[in-house]
């Protein structure tokens, strides 16, 4: 993940006109890299890349293969599939974090990227939320309700939990969407050692 500067977006697209359109749309907000095929994409991919926009239909190396390679190399980035074909359930199983129907409009593309950047924060913010709730739970186990009601520290903790939960829920987005839901779970499992 890029530490400083704008987020890095890698566009993998074999049609030069399409790739150029995306680049023009995105360059004011992101550091955009373009790869015309899967093999080039793999050389462009490093720890700085935050989001990959991956065309599903490419000659030589298909989008699925690039995705598999990204996951095998354990690169911490989120991958959106761009496809003219209406996505079926395979998308979720294959491990794409989102999909965009081709041709996308500008808002759709940037909206997807922003959602995926939010999701990159999800695990850390859920961890923070968990720590606060765990502290609250320890206090509840040690102290009486009357003691808690009088404690300013406890009241401040309750407020922080509320704010952190709001932040997490905003990052979660709409959980009725399958890709968003499975993507969020995948995000927390990446940190669970060996699972």
């Amino acid at each position, binding site marked *: 993940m890029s530490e400083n500067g704008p987020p890095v977006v890698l566009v993998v697209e074999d049609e030069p006109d399409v790739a150029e359109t995306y680049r023009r749309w995105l360059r004011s907000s992101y550091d955009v890299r373009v790869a015309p095929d899967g093999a080039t994409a793999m050389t462009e991919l490093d720890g700085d890349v935050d989001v990959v926009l991956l065309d599903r239909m490419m000659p030589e190396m298909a989008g699925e293969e690039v995705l598999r390679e990204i996951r095998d190399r354990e690169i911490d980035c989120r991958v959106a599939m761009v496809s003219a074909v209406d996505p079926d359930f395979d998308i979720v199983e294959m491990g794409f974090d989102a999909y965009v129907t081709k041709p996308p409009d500008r808002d759709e593309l940037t909206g997807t990227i922003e959602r995926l950047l939010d999701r990159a924060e999800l695990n850390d913010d859920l961890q923070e939320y968990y720590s606060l709730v765990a502290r609250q739970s320890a206090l509840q186990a040690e102290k009486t309700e009357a003691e808690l009601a009088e404690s300013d520290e406890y009241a401040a903790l309750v407020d922080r939990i509320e704010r952190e939960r709001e932040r997490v829920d905003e990052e979660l987005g709409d*959980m009725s969407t399958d890709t968003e839901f499975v993507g969020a779970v995948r995000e927390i499992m990446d940190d669970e050692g060996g699972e």
Partner: protein
Amino acid sequence: MSTPYDIDAVLPDGTIEALPPGTNVLITGPAMVGKREVAFKLLASGHETGEGVLCVSTSASASSMLDEFERYVPTLDRDRVAIVDCSGSDSQRAIREIATERVSSPGDLTGISIGTAKLLQRFSEQDVSDVRHGLVSISTLIQYLDLNTVFKFLHIYTSRIADTDGLGVFTLESVSHDPQTVNTITSEFDCVIELREGEDGREIRVRGLPGASRTWRAFD
């Protein structure tokens, strides 16, 4: 769905009779107090009005789960029961009879989420929009994963159930975990149903919902 999930007659009079869409319920209590039974009854009590049941089973096989359901709903419509089986059982019976997705281990939360998403999609193709989601039990997940991972998963999964207007029913064995752990898990739920063995038999208490009385009452 805008009408509440009916749970009439599952809990004693004067507790709760219906739950709003998007509610997540946790059932806690010591071992052998009947948490699974209450969970199954809550899950099955809308079955006759066309609702679906989607249950994640962390240790029982899909076929024993199906047997348990049929005990509570003799007229079970098998098209509206779906199970994510994490037991590792290789019994083929239930898999032939009801929609089943198998996950290799209860620790594979990504697999569980994919399984539930597939089964929910199947319900939506059948025009079953009101779905009760079970997860039996959280205690097994805690044996396989760090508490913080289980907590994060529950936050995501309960949000999923809320955002799809479902009803969530989860169980937790309260005695084998320390009070802090139980409090942490409990905080993710809208409503907690506690069961215990009292001197004169089983008792129940409901917390969290407006109007729910916090006193223990007899529950046979």
